[in-house]
């Protein structure tokens, strides 16, 4: 099968909308199709990776644990925008999985290398 580079870009907070969860479903399927998958987290999207989701009060299933399973799907290229973290008072230590923190310009370069960019 042809392999293409897919980047899934997350810009939204985890539970206010369904984009984060449904983007993760795309990631898992793309990985199952043995594509070269990466994820980028920008803007409020960085909150998706923050440790300690507690969603009981809003009665929505938490998907924090799914990020931990990405490695099993060989999805290891997880890029997080430095500026978005800083703007929100976060650092890589606040995140639930190991990520590559990159400058906005550097993420732009990675985006440019992709065959397909799906932004949610």
């Amino acid at each position, binding site marked *: 099968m042809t392999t293409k580079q897919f980047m899934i870009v997350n810009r939204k907070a985890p539970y206010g909308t369904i984009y984060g969860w449904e983007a993760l479903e795309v990631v898992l*399927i793309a990985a199952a*199709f043995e594509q070269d998958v990466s994820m980028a987290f920008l803007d409020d999207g960085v909150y998706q990776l923050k440790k300690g989701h507690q969603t009981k009060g809003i009665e929505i299933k938490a998907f924090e644990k799914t990020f931990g399973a990405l490695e099993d799907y060989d999805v290891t290229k997880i890029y997080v925008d430095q500026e978005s973290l800083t703007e929100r008072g976060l650092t890589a230590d606040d995140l639930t999985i190991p990520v590559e923190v990159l400058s906005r310009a550097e993420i732009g370069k990675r985006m440019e290398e992709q065959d*397909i960019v799906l932004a949610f």
Partner: protein
Amino acid sequence: MKFAILVSEGPYTHQASDTAFLFAQAVLAKGHEIFRVFFYHDGVYNATRLTTPPQDDRNIVKRWTKLAQENNLDMVVCVAAAQRRGIVDDGEMKRNGKDATNLAEPFRISGLGQLIEAGIQADRLVVFGD
């Protein structure tokens, strides 16, 4: 060129579906090919035949149907997104014990793999969302 299109917002609330439709029309008019149109997130609502806009407004669902029938377009609705939002065809009705269907012609319900395949097969996958 071979295009694939992803529509990820529902009709009327967002312009994404309108723009995707107009883009698809323009692509075909220029003699290009559309490998597939894939509907995800609230985009699946573009596929309910029960949509009834006021008479002086565009009918977004019928417009997709007509374009697809005239050009033999493959229009695929994501099954997981459709199940969540109550978009149902015969197969889904039986599988999930529902008493009705609402999927418009010639949409079909299938998996997210169809989106990935569209990305692999097309020269460009163009996303219409917010």
